[in-house]
C-alpha cells in the first residue's frame, strides 16, 4: 500500500471510530493479532454474501467461518416460481461447497446455540466454541406460531406456511395441485413487518395461474389480510382481474374483522365476517420476528427485530456485531434477498476495514423486488437508499405502472430471471 493510501486509511479509521463513538478500533485484539477471526451466522442471502465478500476481499488475511446447519440452501426467492410451475426445487437449491473452497471460508454445518457477547464466542449446538473479533449475524426470520388462533407449529403440515423454503414449498405445491375444480383456497396474509412484502400476492397470482392452467377456473382464492393495503396493490389487483377474473377475492381488516380461529383438522377459517369451511388449502403466513439467536442474545428490541447503525449495519447494542437481512431494522428497506445482499456488502466492507485496515467507502444500499403475475407479465418495485442518522432512507423509489405494454412486462420478467442468476452467483460462487 502506498504511503498516501495508508495515510488515508488512518484518517478514515479515526473518522470511523469518532463517528461510531463506541469503541477503539485498532485495539490489540484486532490489528496486530496473527489472523483476526470473523464468524458469520446464517448462510442465506445476508450471511452468505457477508462471508463471501469478507473472505474474497481480504484474500486470506482473515479467518472466516460460516455457521449454517443446512448443506443446501433453498432460496425463498423464486420459490413462488416453483409454486407456479416455472421452476423446479433443484433450480432454487444451492450448495456451499464451491463458495467455501473458492473464497477460503470454513463451513461449520451446525446451529449457533448461543452468542456469549462478553467473551466474544459463538457456541454451536454440537458444543464447539468459535471465538470472534467481529460477528455478522443474518438468521432471517422466525415464524410467530402463536399469532393465528388455532394454528401452531404442529399444524404446519395441515395448513402450510411455506415462508421458509424447502419441504414446506414442496408440500404447498402438492396441496395446490390437489385442489379440485370449484375448491376454495384461503390465504391468511401476515401483518407488517414481514419477509418479502409482495411475496404473498405474487403467490396468490401463482395459485390462480396453476389452477386456471389446469382448467380449474371455478376455484376461488380468498386472501384474509390484516393490513389495509399492501405492496404493489393496484398492480396486483389489476393483474388478477385481467388474468384470473372472479378467482381472487382480497379482504382487508375492515371487511373481515380479523381471523377469529382456524381448525386445521377440517380446513375451517373463521373471521368476524364469514366462515370458510372445507377449504382445499389454507396457506397460513403468520406474523414474524428476527431469528431466535439474535433475540436470545439481547440484540433485538421490543419490536422483535435488531436496531442497527444505518451507515454500517453495526448493532447499536454491541459494537462487535453486525446484523443484516430480515433480522435487522433497516429503515425504508423491505425485507428481501436483494436488501440482505446489499446490506451484507456494507457490513463486509466495514468489518474488513476494522480488521485489516482496508479502505472505507460510503454506505450504499439498493433493492428491487420483481413479482410474476402470469406468463411474461411481471412487475417490479425498488429504489436507492442512503444512510441518514435516524434510519436507512429511500432516496429514489420506483414502481411499475398500470397499463404498461406487454413488451415491457415481458422484459421485466426477463430481468427477474437474470437477477436470480446474478444474486445466487454473488452468494454461492
Amino acid at each position: 500500500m502506498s504511503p498516501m493510501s495508508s495515510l488515508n486509511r488512518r484518517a478514515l479509521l479515526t473518522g470511523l471510530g469518532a463517528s461510531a463513538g463506541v469503541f477503539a478500533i485498532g485495539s490489540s485484539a484486532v490489528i496486530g493479532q496473527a489472523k483476526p477471526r470473523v464468524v458469520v451466522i446464517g448462510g442465506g442471502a445476508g450471511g452468505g454474501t457477508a462471508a463471501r465478500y469478507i473472505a474474497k476481499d481480504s484474500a486470506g488475511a482473515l479467518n472466516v467461518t460460516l455457521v449454517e446447519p443446512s448443506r443446501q440452501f433453498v432460496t425463498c426467492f423464486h420459490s413462488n416460481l416453483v409454486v407456479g410451475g416455472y421452476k423446479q426445487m433443484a433450480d432454487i437449491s444451492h450448495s456451499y461447497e464451491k463458495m467455501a473452497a473458492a473464497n477460503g471460508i470454513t463451513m461449520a454445518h451446525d446451529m449457533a446455540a448461543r452468542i456469549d457477547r462478553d467473551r466474544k464466542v459463538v457456541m454451536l449446538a454440537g458444543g464447539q466454541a468459535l471465538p470472534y473479533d467481529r460477528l455478522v449475524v443474518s438468521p432471517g426470520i422466525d415464524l410467530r406460531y402463536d399469532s393465528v388462533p388455532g394454528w401452531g407449529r404442529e399444524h404446519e403440515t395441515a395448513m402450510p406456511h411455506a415462508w421458509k423454503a424447502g419441504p414446506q414449498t414442496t408440500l404447498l405445491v402438492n396441496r395446490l395441485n390437489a385442489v379440485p375444480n370449484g375448491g376454495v383456497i384461503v390465504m391468511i396474509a401476515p401483518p407488517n413487518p414481514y419477509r418479502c412484502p409482495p411475496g404473498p400476492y405474487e403467490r396468490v397470482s401463482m395459485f390462480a395461474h396453476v389452477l386456471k392452467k389446469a382448467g380449474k377456473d371455478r376455484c376461488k382464492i380468498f386472501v384474509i389480510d390484516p393490513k389495509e393495503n399492501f405492496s404493489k396493490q393496484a398492480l396486483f389487483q389489476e393483474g388478477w382481474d385481467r388474468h384470473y377474473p372472479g378467482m381472487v377475492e382480497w379482504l382487508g381488516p375492515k371487511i373481515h374483522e380479523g381471523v377469529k380461529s382456524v381448525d386445521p383438522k377440517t380446513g375451517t377459517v373463521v373471521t368476524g365476517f364469514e366462515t370458510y369451511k372445507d377449504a382445499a388449502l389454507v396457506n397460513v403466513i403468520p406474523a414474524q420476528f428476527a431469528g431466535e439467536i439474535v433475540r436470545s442474545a439481547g440484540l433485538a428490541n421490543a419490536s422483535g427485530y435488531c436496531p442497527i447503525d444505518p451507515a454500517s449495519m453495526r448493532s447499536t447494542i454491541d459494537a462487535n456485531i453486525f446484523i443484516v437481512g430480515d433480522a435487522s431494522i433497516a429503515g425504508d428497506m423491505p425485507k428481501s434477498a436483494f436488501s440482505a445482499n446489499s446490506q451484507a456488502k456494507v457490513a463486509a466492507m466495514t468489518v474488513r476495514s476494522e480488521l485489516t485496515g482496508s479502505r472505507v467507502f460510503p454506505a450504499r444500499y439498493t433493492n428491487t423486488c420483481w413479482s410474476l403475475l402470469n406468463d411474461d407479465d411481471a412487475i417490479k418495485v425498488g429504489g436507492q437508499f442512503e444512510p441518514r442518522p435516524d434510519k436507512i432512507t429511500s432516496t429514489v423509489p420506483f414502481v411499475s405502472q398500470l397499463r404498461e405494454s406487454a413488451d415491457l412486462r415481458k422484459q421485466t420478467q426477463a430481468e427477474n430471471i437474470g437477477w436470480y442468476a446474478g444474486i445466487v452467483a454473488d452468494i454461492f460462487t
Partner: protein
Amino acid sequence: MAVRRFIASGFLGIACQMAGFMALPAHAADKAFGEYLAGECVTCHLPSGRQVGGIPAIAGMPEISFMALMESYARRERDNQVMQAVAGKFNSDELAALAAYFASLKPE
C-alpha cells in the same frame, strides 16, 4: 478524490450528488472504489460476463461505452426504471471508478 470528499463530508452526510455528467475526469479513476460501488451492479450483472435472461453482460465493457450508457440512463434518455435510479445517483468520479472497474474484468 472520492475518498477525500468522503472524509470531508464526515462519514454520515454523504449527499446523493446529482452532479452534471462530464466525460472521463482528468485524474485516474479509482478502481478500488469502483469495485466497491460495483457490489450493487453484480447482484444482477454477472462479473463472468455471462448473460442470463434480460440482464445484459457488462464485464469487460470499454470505459467510454460504459460512461455513455450510464449517462443516458441518468438523463432518462434510455428506458429502465432500475437503471435510471442506479445511474442517477452517481457523480462523475463514481461513474469513472465504476467504468474503470468493469473495463478491467475479463469476460470468461
